[in-house]
């Protein structure tokens, strides 16, 4: 039955994470952007919220709570409202933990999951490939079977925390379709190239990585021979990315709205001018629209249904809207939108990336 009321539990976690994002993340976002780094204490505090380990089964040291893409969307939106880079950093370990939780063999779960239950432990996934027509339905990175092993070859980019991670989940095309592989740091042929410099996401350490004949044992394939639903993982990551974008767009909208009510021109607040007021109205509408599309896709995933179309369309929509919204937020602020004393230009830089981001955050 159609219902948009979050559960009490969802409201609680939304408020908890929301307060954390507002009080601990947002205030340091500008400094992190300028310095290109994130203070360890914030990462540790975020970890303590249970963002990573709460769904990990108790036998592996977690809380064994239920996974829900919708709840994940709610959480990611709040974190994104704080700062997308910091959000991606604190959520990065999920990129290994959740796929293994969802589709790993019992051995893989036993081996991998406990790493994430004591304290923040960096791990990451290598999904995007550095070409303009990167296509999640067909990876150029290949996984070739060879004598009971797999040999991985390819190039990846936008790999968060690559330098400090000890475990990489690598998506590659195997002879039976897209597959995911657990690659330990130090595997021969795995090279973490130098840290990427991008227009946005500056506080988040990301790297290109090269895979040159990286040999991994057969049981490094997530889910073993039976494999693993890569498409579902990508869909869960789309929900995560959409929600981060929505959170950021929401912050940009709120900031622009308050500015427009304060700032005067021609004797009245600029918010009283239709050109500005309609821009703000459009932002408000599109934020809600984007959220509803995202939640619908998430709810479908929670029911175990295929939601590739919904996730794909939601991702396209959110990526386009977050850019438009942050661009308009800069516009509402005018000169103040263009200078780095205000957060708006930072949101605008981050926003442009979402059309290329895939698999960099997961719910």
């Amino acid at each position: 039955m159609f219902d948009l009321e979050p559960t009490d539990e969802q409201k609680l976690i939304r408020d908890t994470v929301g307060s954390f994002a507002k009080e601990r993340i947002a205030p340091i976002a500008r400094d992190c952007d300028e310095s290109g780094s994130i203070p360890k204490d914030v990462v540790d505090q975020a970890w303590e919220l249970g963002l990573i380990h709460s769904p990990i089964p108790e036998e592996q040291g977690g809380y064994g709570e239920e996974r829900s893409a919708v709840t994940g969307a709610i959480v990611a939106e709040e974190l994104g409202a704080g700062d997308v880079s910091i959000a991606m950093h604190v959520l990065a370990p999920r990129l290994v933990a959740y796929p293994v939780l969802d589709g790993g063999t019992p051995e893989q779960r036993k081996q991998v999951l406990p790493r994430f239950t004591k304290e923040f432990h960096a791990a990451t996934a290598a999904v995007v490939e550095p070409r303009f027509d990167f296509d999640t339905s067909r990876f150029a990175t290949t996984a070739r079977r060879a004598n009971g092993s797999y040999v991985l070859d390819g190039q990846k980019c936008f790999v968060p925390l690559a330098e400090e991670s000890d475990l990489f989940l690598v998506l590659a095309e195997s002879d039976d379709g897209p597959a995911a592989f657990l690659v330990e740091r130090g595997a021969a042929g795995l090279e973490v190239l130098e840290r990427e410099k991008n227009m946005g996401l500056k506080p988040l350490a990301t790297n290109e990585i090269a895979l040159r004949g990286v040999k991994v044992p057969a049981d490094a394939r997530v889910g073993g021979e039976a494999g693993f639903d890569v498409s579902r993982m990508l869909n869960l990551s789309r929900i995560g990315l959409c929600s981060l974008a929505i959170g950021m767009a929401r912050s940009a909208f709120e900031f622009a709205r308050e500015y427009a009510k304060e700032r005067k021109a021609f004797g009245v607040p600029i918010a009283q001018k239709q050109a500005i007021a309609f821009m703000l109205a459009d932002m408000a509408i599109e934020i809600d629209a984007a959220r509803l599309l995202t939640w619908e896709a998430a709810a479908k995933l929670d029911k175990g249904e295929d939601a590739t179309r919904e996730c794909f369309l939601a991702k396209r929509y959110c990526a386009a809207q977050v850019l438009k919204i942050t661009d308009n937020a800069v516009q509402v602020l005018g000169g103040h939108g263009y200078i780095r004393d205000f957060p708006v230009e930072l949101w605008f830089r981050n926003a442009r990336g979402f059309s290329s981001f895939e698999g960099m955050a997961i719910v």
Partner: protein
Amino acid sequence: MIDFELSQSIQDQKKLVHQVAQEGMRPISREFDEKEHEKPWDFLKFMWQVAGGRAMTGENTDGKPRSGAKENTLTAAVTIEELSWGDAGIYLTIPNAGLGGAAVAAAGTPEQKKRFLARFSSGEPKWAAMAITEPHCGSDSAAIQTTATRDGDHWVINGTKVFCTSGLMAGEKSEGFVVVWATVDKTAGRGGIKSFVVEANTPGMKVIKVENKLGIRASDTAMIVFEDCRIPADNILGSAEVVKSTEGFKGAMATFDATRPLVAASALGIGQAALDLAREELEKAGRPIRYGSSDATLTAIEKDFMDAESDLHAARLLTWRAAWMMDRGKRNNLEASMAKAKAGLAVTRATQKAVELLGPLGYSRKLLLEKWMRDAKINDIFEGTQQINMLIVARRILGYSSKELS
């Protein structure tokens, strides 16, 4: 719990109405577009018979909740989308309590609801219309010039109303009524504006013109003149005290909170019809829409199609939200205008794009697509233009009055 799956009863209703739309409306769609001022009586009578003027649209016209009424507005939205998928012009002219009834339901006393709405459960087909817009006042409802003057036990109405949907059917061709917005005190501005029920064929009310239109031609859009039109004193909607307060206008405006999601729903139906047809034709031509890879691998057609599809579906979710809030008794003024604004834009874009995607065939009257594009445009205009709905959204998010932002 957050859930986007419609309840089984709505899904069943949707399936049923879709079939009605497909079999009852589509075959006569072109005919009644071309025969502009004629009505598809067989279909309208059928709808009246099976739906008693309310069930099909889910409207709660007799003041009593229907079974499963807690999803009343959402059911109506889904139903109206399907009917408009069939034919938005014909949908608009289906006999029922319509906008006039919605005004009574929103602003009337229990006695008035009974007196005015019970008729939609029996007898011959009936319509009820709403007369707001005037020749020299468009979206600015507060500038209404039509007057209502008290004379003993009557109100005397004088003025001219335009763009009154189903005005002819409600005012002259059935035992329905027209809800008229008029001012009881020109010096009082908005506060003086009240709504009045004028029974069909009341002397002094006359339809003087039925418009020729771009689209929704099966629906009559009337110009109505009121000349010393006398109606009983208790036909003013609301309680006796309403005359003295500014509640009349607010009540009247509240009608829109209920109707805008339904108007948005109608837009969705037109847009979905266009996308369904375009997708079908493209598939026939070996050009299916492929989801899930990346924009860099899409064709221009796929990209345009997906943009339109997402826009329309986003509008649908905004519409369902506004309806759901109504059903939950939450104030949905902001959300209703969001839905209306987005749906109006989405449907005009989707239909215009679909015509383009199909090339010469899209432009031809061989298909209904070109008609849907013409029908669609009304959604940016009636029940508050695009601009008015954006203004309402802006006022609400900024906390501004209509004086601060107009």
